[in-house]
Structure formats: structure tokens, C-alpha cells
């Protein structure tokens, strides 16, 4: 068959597929029962056109049509909202439990330095200067000094908002980095975890030693449930990448990395959400000074229990389909 005749014979189908694809691409394609058959036909046309060496522009146009068709047919459309719920109630806690070993490793990397530094700083007032600059320590001391009047004043809502933005920006970025730097054979993740542990532990130890407990502990205990857990979870995800690189098993390194990355995604997204929550609590609840310490402690206890219960129990069943 000559090209012209071929074009004339099949043009209507191409146009039909083209308009069908356009409507599908705009995501309002209503009835697509004919689509696979039509697409298959045009695939056939392309194969014929290539085989018969029709002119390049015709082949190009058909190729383009088939490419679009392929993308539509094999496109997996899943409703976002249900995925999200499924993720929260099942995927996230389940995938963390699956990586329990790495999670405890990550926790250890974070908690041990924190405890050690905390103990050291608590026993030795000068110890903190080995990890912080004099200025930094002075700032922190000023922030939590109970004698300081400014912390006794209820902060305004707009300041809360500013801090909310700051916390989100800062914390989530740390979380992401903890994960992503796992790509450097885990070195980055380990460094971030340890240094965060050292940082937090030293400050906690130092302030406790200075008897600033009334301002410091109520402040951090609430959002800590989410924030610290999220950092450790990011670390778990980063370590997953590292593990894939160190022991790819029966896969190639790249393949192992790909697999690990896709398995780590739920953890990273979950950690991000947790950091959002942490930022919210930190900005609007922890900073509040009108709430008395016992209430803050009890809320903190509830939050910690909730987080632990969530990771222990959520998604144990088959999960919503």
C-alpha cells in the first residue's frame, strides 16, 4: 500500500486516538472502553509504517501518538486521598516495623551520644564548651534562664507563626538531609545523627545542671515525641540506602539502591509529616507560658504514648484495600 492511501485509510483513527488522548490527558476522559483497542490498532499502524519505510515525518507522528497512548494506558491512576489514608494507617508504621533493626541502630546512634554528652555536661559545667562556642552557650542560657523576663511573657500569635515557619523549614531540612546523605555509604546519616545527639544531649545536660529545668524540659518534652522520633526515622531511611550500598545482596548496587530508595520513601514522607506536627506543637504549644508545667508534662506523656502506640499497633491487620 502506498503511503498516501495508507494515510487516507487510517487518518480518522489517528485523529480519533489523538482527541481521545487529549481528553485523557486532561483527566476528564469519560468513557475509555475503546481506547485500548484503538491504541493497539495505531501501534500496528506504526509497526507497518516502519516496516514499509514510509516517510520519516509520518513515522514520527505515529510514534508520537503511540508514545502518548503508551503513557496513558500504562499510567496508574490512584486516588491520592485514599493512598494517603492507607499510607498513614498502614504503610508507614508497617514499613518502620519492617526495618526495626535499622531503627534501633539509628536510635542508638542518636541516643547514646546524647546520653553520654548529657551526663558529661551535667557533671562538668565546662564540658559544653567542647562542642559549642561561648556565644552559642550564652544564647542558649539566656533563652532558658527562668530569671529572664522575656520568656515569661506570652508570645504573640504572629511570632508563633514565624517560629512555626522557621521550625518547619529547619527541622524538615535536617530530616531530608539525614535521609539523603545515606547515599554516601551512610557516612552522612551517621554524622548527622551523632552530631544531633551530641548537640541536644549537651544542651539538655548543661541546662539541667544550671537548674533551668522549669523552662527547658516542659518546652522540649511535648514536641520531642514527634521531632526526635522523626529524626531517628529519617536516619533509618538513610541507613536503608547505606545498607543497600554496603551489602546489595544478590542485586547489583544500583538495583539494590533503587529498591532501597523506594522502600525508604514511606519513612521519609512519614518523618516529614511528623516534623510538621512537631513544628506545630513547638510553635504553638511548647512556647506557651500560660500553661503550667504539670499540664505540659502530662500532654507530653500522652503524645509520647500515642507515638509509641501508633508505631506498635497501627497497620497490624491486612490494611484497607
Amino acid at each position: 500500500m502506498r503511503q498516501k492511501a495508507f494515510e487516507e485509510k487510517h487518518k480518522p483513527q489517528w485523529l480519533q486516538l489523538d482527541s481521545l488522548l487529549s481528553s485523557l490527558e486532561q483527566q476528564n476522559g469519560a468513557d475509555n472502553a475503546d481506547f485500548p483497542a484503538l491504541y493497539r490498532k495505531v501501534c500496528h499502524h506504526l509497526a507497518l509504517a516502519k516496516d514499509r519505510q514510509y516517510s520519516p515525518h509520518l513515522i514520527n507522528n505515529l510514534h508520537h501518538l503511540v508514545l502518548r497512548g503508551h503513557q496513558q494506558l500504562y499510567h496508574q491512576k490512584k486516588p491520592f486521598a485514599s493512598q494517603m489514608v492507607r499510607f498513614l494507617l498502614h504503610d508507614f508504621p508497617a514499613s518502620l516495623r519492617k526495618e526495626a533493626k535499622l531503627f534501633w541502630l539509628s536510635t542508638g546512634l542518636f541516643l547514646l551520644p546524647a546520653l553520654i554528652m548529657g551526663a558529661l555536661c551535667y557533671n562538668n559545667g565546662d564540658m559544653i564548651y567542647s562542642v559549642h562556642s561561648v556565644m552559642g552557650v550564652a544564647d542558649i542560657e539566656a533563652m532558658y534562664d527562668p530569671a529572664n523576663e522575656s520568656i515569661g511573657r506570652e508570645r504573640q500569635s504572629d511570632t508563633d507563626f514565624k517560629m512555626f515557619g522557621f521550625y518547619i523549614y529547619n527541622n524538615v531540612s535536617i530530616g531530608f538531609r539525614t535521609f539523603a546523605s545515606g547515599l554516601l555509604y551512610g557516612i552522612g546519616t551517621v554524622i548527622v545523627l551523632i552530631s544531633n545527639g551530641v548537640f541536644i544531649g549537651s544542651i539538655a545536660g548543661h541546662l539541667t545542671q544550671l537548674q533551668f529545668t522549669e523552662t527547658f524540659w516542659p518546652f522540649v518534652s511535648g514536641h520531642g515525641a514527634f521531632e526526635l522520633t522523626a529524626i531517628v526515622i529519617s536516619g533509618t531511611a538513610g541507613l536503608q540506602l547505606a545498607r543497600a550500598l554496603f551489602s546489595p545482596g544478590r542485586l547489583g548496587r544500583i538495583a539494590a539502591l533503587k529498591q532501597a530508595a523506594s522502600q525508604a520513601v514511606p519513612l521519609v514522607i512519614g518523618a516529614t509529616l511528623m516534623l510538621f506536627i512537631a513544628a506545630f506543637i513547638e510553635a504553638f504549644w511548647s512556647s506557651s507560658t500560660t500553661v503550667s508545667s504539670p499540664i505540659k508534662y502530662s500532654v507530653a506523656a500522652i503524645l509520647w504514648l500515642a507515638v509509641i502506640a501508633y508505631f506498635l499497633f497501627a497497620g497490624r491487620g491486612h490494611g484497607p484495600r
Partner: protein
Amino acid sequence: MDLDKIRVNVRPRTTAQAIDLGFVMARHWWRPLMLSWLMLALPMFILFHLIFYQMPWIAGLLVWLCKPLYEQAPLHVLSRALFSEKTSMKEIAKNLRSIAGKQMIANLTWRRLSLRRSFNAPVSQLEGLKGDARKKRINVLHGNKPSGGWLTFICVHLELVFYLSIFALISLFIPREIEVNAFELITGETFWIILLQDFIYLLAIAIVAPFYIAAGFSLYLHRRIELEAWDIELDFRKLNTRLNSQKRSSTNLAALFVVCSLLTVQLTDSTAMASENFLTTSDQTSPAPTKETAQQQIQEILKDEVFGQEETHKVWREIESDDQPEDIGDFDLDWLQKIAEAIAFIGEFILWVIIGALVLWIVYLYPKWTQWFGIKSITPRKKYRAPETLFGLDVRPESLPDDIGAEAWRLCQDNQMRAALSLLYRASLVTLMNQHKLEFHKGATEGECLKIVQQTQLQELGNYFYRLTVIWKAMAYGHQAPSLDDMQSLCEHWREHLGTKHEPAC
């Protein structure tokens, strides 16, 4: 040399795709390109630093200035590799002077800052054109869409990226105890530090050079492929060969046409007088690593938005300056401030409300949560309301005649079997719903109704209803009329099973 032996897939490409192909070529012939580049670059680097050891910044400047010189040899290698010809390094070394020295003065002076350097290089070097001829040729090749500028622009920045990255990497590995940071490395002034800077600069441009050269060459190549339809020529020539297979030698002569013009390497020294486009405004290469210029140019370039990855830092400064009320301006903005505070307060309030709503929602969804959490949940019973129609039959008690059995039998004798059966069946359902309080759904089929009836303890009623249903189904869907005997029996026994209790209710 033969067009048939070309190693790339010849077809017209867009500018961007041509550049990409150049990168693929550079990756493929990385070793020879790199070696031939270093062959000149490394000795010159050492030479300059030996001569100007007292003023190392001049040496650095010279290293930068002579970049076009190093690029000649790789281009030569590439143009031959393209047609499957290997060039030994020995060969290059032997002809280094003739290859690299071509049109040297022009290349190092007024053409040095041309943004299209790598595109134009093949014209002068491979085609051997100079002066007006070269200029004309270049104009033809560029046509109305000159290309290569972006390539140079981005490659210069890539060099800078690598330059700074190497410093950053080094600083990562310097222990904290040694009080040297990357910044001091970049801005240091002693000879050794400048030498280090220059060497890192050499490394950075060495990484980029093969790609830059190959991409420029590929751009040049594709303009020619487009203008001269090489792909068609290849096909035509194959066709020719097929039809003239006995005269193969003669076609091969013709085959040399394109290739010769492309790759003639004229060995005469060039003192080209060409006054080509001279782009004075371009910032064509990265900063020469002298202490002042380096620092200054780095600062300048970092100010450029192109390098705005520093934007995060800018952000922090902005926030801090936010705290200074003077920034807002002299005019009175208190009211605005108050509005902002009000919005913030409302915003916070709304956020709390959202949290509260979320908690309520979670509590509300508790049954489903338990299900998701793996605990068996109790499916809530659906409310039942007696339907008014069933299978399209009116099943309200009011719609029925008084004596069902008799009425049905009358219809039978009129030969209206279907109507009779319909009446019997309908009446049965009504009675079952109202007297026996059975539940039938709107969509319940005959079989389901029967099952419900049979689940009751009324054995005889069940049997009767079973018979009725079977006959009714055969009539309604199989168009099989029942025998009169069957009908009589059904009509007579209706009252016995279903009629008695119904009668007084009517």
C-alpha cells in the same frame, strides 16, 4: 576515511540533542581526548609556573588564556575517531606543532573570548579556512540560528562548580584541629596555595574540556548534517553501491567528498587576517586564579542569580532584618501591624480548630480504624423498610383483592395464567411481609425471597411457596405455562397457607 564508517547515528537533531551527542562522544572517547588534552596542558602548566614562580597569578592567567591551544589536539583525535580511525598519542606528539599551532595568534587573542569557540574551531582547524573564507563559512554554518553560546556559558559555570567543589571536598577532609578552611584556601596568597589553586583549576577545566570540545564539534557536525543531508547521502551512496557493485572502486572515490573537506589538515602556519565577530562582552571563561581576580570574580559570580543556590542564606538574613522595624518605612504602619496580628491570631485559632476537628474525625471513624488496625469490626446493620414494590409488583396490602385464591382461579379460567400467577405470588409476598414480618429488599430476587421464607420454621408454608416460586419463575422467565391442575392446586391451597390470617386484616 569514509562516510560509511562514521561512528555516530547520522540524522538531523535539534541543537540541544546535538550537544548531548557530543557528550556521549566525549564519554566514549574519554581516554584519548583526555590524554591529548593533557599532552599540551600539563607541560604548559608546569612551564608557566616555573617561569613565573615569583608571580604565580600570571602563570594562572596564562593557563587560562591558552585553553584554545590545548583543545586543538583533542579535536583532531575526535574528528578521526568519528570515522573509526585511531590516532596514536605518539603521532600527535610528533605533529603537535602543526596541529596546535594552527592560527595560534588569532585563537589566543581576538578569538579567545568568542562564545562560539568550540563550534568555530573545526572550521579553522579541520577545514583549514582562514580570513574571509572562514568568516563566510562560519556565517553559513550558523545560518539564522547561531548556536554554541549557551554551551560555552554553561560549561564555564561547570568549570567553576567543579573548581569550588574540589575545594569543598578538600575542606571536608581537613580535620577541625587544623585551622585551615576552604575559604582560606581560595583566598590564600602564598605561592603554594596559589599553586594549589591553579592546579585545582587545571583539574576542573580538565574534567570539562573533553565534553566541551566534543559538544562544540557535534554542534558543528550537525549543522553540516542538516545543511548537507549527510544521512541522505549515506543512503544514496549505499543504493549506488548496490546497483553498481561491479564498479565499487569508483563509488569509493566519490565517497571521499565530504570527508576530505572536513578533515583536511593543512599544515601551513596561519596568520589569519579574519576580522570575525568578536564578542567583547562575554565572560567567556572562569576566573583566572590570581588572588584578587579570583576572589573578586567568585564574589561577582556568586552574586549572580545563576548561582542562587545560596538563596537559603539570603533568606535567613531577610528574616533577621525583618526584626528591624525601620525597614518597614517611615510612614505609619501600625494599623497594618495590627491587622497582621489579628490575622495571625485568627490563623492560630483556625489551626487549633482544625486539630480539634481532626481529633473528632478520628474518634468518629473509630469503627473503621479498628478494622484497619486489624481488629474485627461490627458491620452496622442496615435499616429495613418494607418496600412498596417488589420486582415491579405493587405489594401494598391495599392493592390486593379480597379473595385471592378465587380471584386467581377466575383469571386461570379466563386463560390469563400469567396474571393469575402474578397475583398469587404478589399476594404471598404481601402476606409474608405483613403477617410474618419477613424482610425483603428492593432488589431481592425470587430465589432470595424463597430462601428467606425457607429459613422460617413454617415447613408447610415453605413448601407451598417453593412450588409457587418455581412455577412463577418458569412462567415469567421461561414462558412455560403451568398445567391447569397445578394452578388449581395452588389457588386452592393459597388460603390454607397464607390466607387465613390475612383475611381479617383486610
